[in-house]
């Protein structure tokens, strides 16, 4: 027994240590550093090493910061909702009706993820801009007399771009969830007298819920942390928490406040995850 246990234990340490070290050095230590900064005082460009709630008080009392937080939450929820509604029919089609085109279509869904994030965001500028594709089309067809400035640099364009960018993260788990859904159960529901919509509501949705929430969690957290789309596509007043973090670590050089913002976002996402883990969502990520 003891003879046998030795190589087993050795194997355990060999497989456990590298990822453990990786996570410790590159993830856990920076996280602790970040959380430490969040509770330290900032004076000009210096960090004073003493414990304080000042940064969080500032976030809570400054209306600009507070509004940005609320706006971020609101936008993240909206993007998640829109992506859910968009992904449901797409995933349904992929899982049940795509037939032999399924692989190709799946690759098409994934393809944007292999291209640069910046390129994809800029693409929307080209589409929505004053001299953009959309305006060109509308003016050419005579629907508009002159190009409109309404398409870009506002909440609409920001939400549109965010929805587009994160959509694959919703489609994938949802498609998997639909694929795992036994069609026999949908037949059973119809057999017992349920109309198609009732079947969808009472059988389909509950059974794909873990996949749906897993996708939702991805889209939600990715939106919560994004700062490039708001600054490139959004309007002047549409910045998100991510922009605050970026500017506090950058121009403002106020690392403690930036850390505090990051900590708030982390706590929000952890709360959502804690809520969802009870529904078995994390196993479906």
């Amino acid at each position: 027994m003891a003879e046998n246990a030795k190589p087993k234990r050795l194997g355990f340490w060999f497989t456990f240590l590298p990822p453990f070290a990786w996570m410790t050095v590159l993830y856990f230590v920076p996280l602790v550093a970040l959380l430490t900064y969040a509770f330290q005082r900032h004076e000009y460009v210096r960090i004073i090493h003493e414990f304080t709630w000042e940064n969080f008080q500032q976030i809570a009392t400054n209306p600009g910061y507070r509004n940005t937080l609320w706006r971020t939450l609101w936008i993240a929820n909206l993007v998640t909702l829109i992506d859910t509604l968009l992904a449901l029919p797409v995933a349904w089609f992929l899982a049940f009706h795509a037939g032999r085109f399924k692989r190709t279509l799946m690759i098409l869904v994934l393809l944007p993820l292999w291209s640069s994030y910046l390129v994809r965001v800029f693409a929307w500028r080209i589409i929505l801009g004053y001299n953009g594709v959309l305006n060109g089309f509308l003016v050419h067809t005579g629907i508009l007399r002159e190009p409109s400035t309404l398409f870009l640099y506002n909440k609409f364009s920001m939400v549109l771009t965010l929805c587009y960018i994160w959509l694959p993260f919703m489609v994938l788990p949802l498609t998997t969830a639909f694929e795992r859904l036994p069609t026999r159960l949908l037949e059973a529901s119809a057999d017992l007298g349920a109309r198609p919509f009732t079947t969808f509501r009472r059988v389909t949705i509950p059974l794909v819920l873990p996949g749906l929430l897993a996708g939702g969690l991805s889209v939600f957290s990715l939106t919560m942390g994004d700062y490039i789309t708001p600054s490139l596509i959004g309007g002047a007043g549409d910045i998100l928490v991510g922009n605050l973090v970026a500017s506090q670590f950058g121009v403002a050089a106020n690392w403690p406040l930036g850390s505090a913002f990051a900590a708030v976002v982390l706590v929000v996402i952890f709360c959502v995850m804690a809520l969802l883990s009870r529904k078995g969502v994390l196993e479906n990520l």
Partner: protein
Amino acid sequence: MNDQAVILESVSRAYGNVRAVDNVSLTIHAGEFFTLLGSSGSGKTTTLRLIGGFETPDAGRVLIGGVDVTRLPAYKRNVHTVFQDYALFPHLNVFDNVAFALSLKNLSRDELRRQVGAALELVQLAGYEDRKPGQLSGGQQQRVALARAIVDHPAVLLLDEPLSALDAKIRGEVREEIKRLQRETRITFVYVTHDQEEALTMSDRLAVMRGGRVLQLGTPLDVYERPADLFVAEFVGKANFLDGQLTSQAGTRATIRIADQTVDATLAFPIATGAAVRVMIRPENLRLQPPGQPGFTGVVTQSQYLGHATQYLVQSGALTLRVLELRRRGTVPHAEGAAVVVNWNWEEALVYPQTKAE
């Protein structure tokens, strides 16, 4: 209530080139235990799905309770199904699974509770309301599926090989349970199986299917004792087939020459004298007698003691005969190698035309 629970009128359903159901006409009476018996690919499951509304026929009509439902989707038919793999909703507990059909109707909470309770009582699962399907054994899941399907008293209950996923051990138990349930609820049962023993023991009437067609429709007694053709004879129960020539006939009594023997058998159909025929006789209808008696003289090549009976293989010239002899007090099984004579009562053997179609 209409006496005809289900009527299929010249129903056909094809998948590509395969005629899964080929011009099938059936009438299933109200309150009857009706079985569709056939091997895989015989069209029995497709027939069931046509009644359930999961398939639409290419031709023909489906009537339930006298009403044409050919174009009605499953959810508009007063028919429930017990699926082969039960198809219980994994996210709902036993109570909510059973309550599913009722919950779609406008029932008071108390009434719903009462009816679900009654259904669970009927399948002896009272007290399991809060369990999830995953926490139940196969037999229990089966009973939940039954309760779910009978809870609102459908006109017809369809059962798709409900015993095939169960251990042989509890299969017999569940079989009796299903039979009892049918007697108590008086619901019309349409039962699909490939197991001829299930079909014979459970059904009031059965249809033997093959290649999308109904070969024979009748009571288990009809089907076993007067099979419509040689395929049915072979598929339902065991049988010996002896090829010969019809030499003469008087009424239904035919005289047939088989090898160098002349034997008598019953004509199931009018057949011309001189025709090549095949005689079908069940193993239990063959008699083993000491040498010297009229019949096929042969040697016991295999003797299997089954307890209630002994099964023999007897070789007589080129013929191999399967004989089943019930055990009686004081008789000794014939040993392998023993010389015997095999014969039969002419009423027990049936004559069929020899068709090379099979």
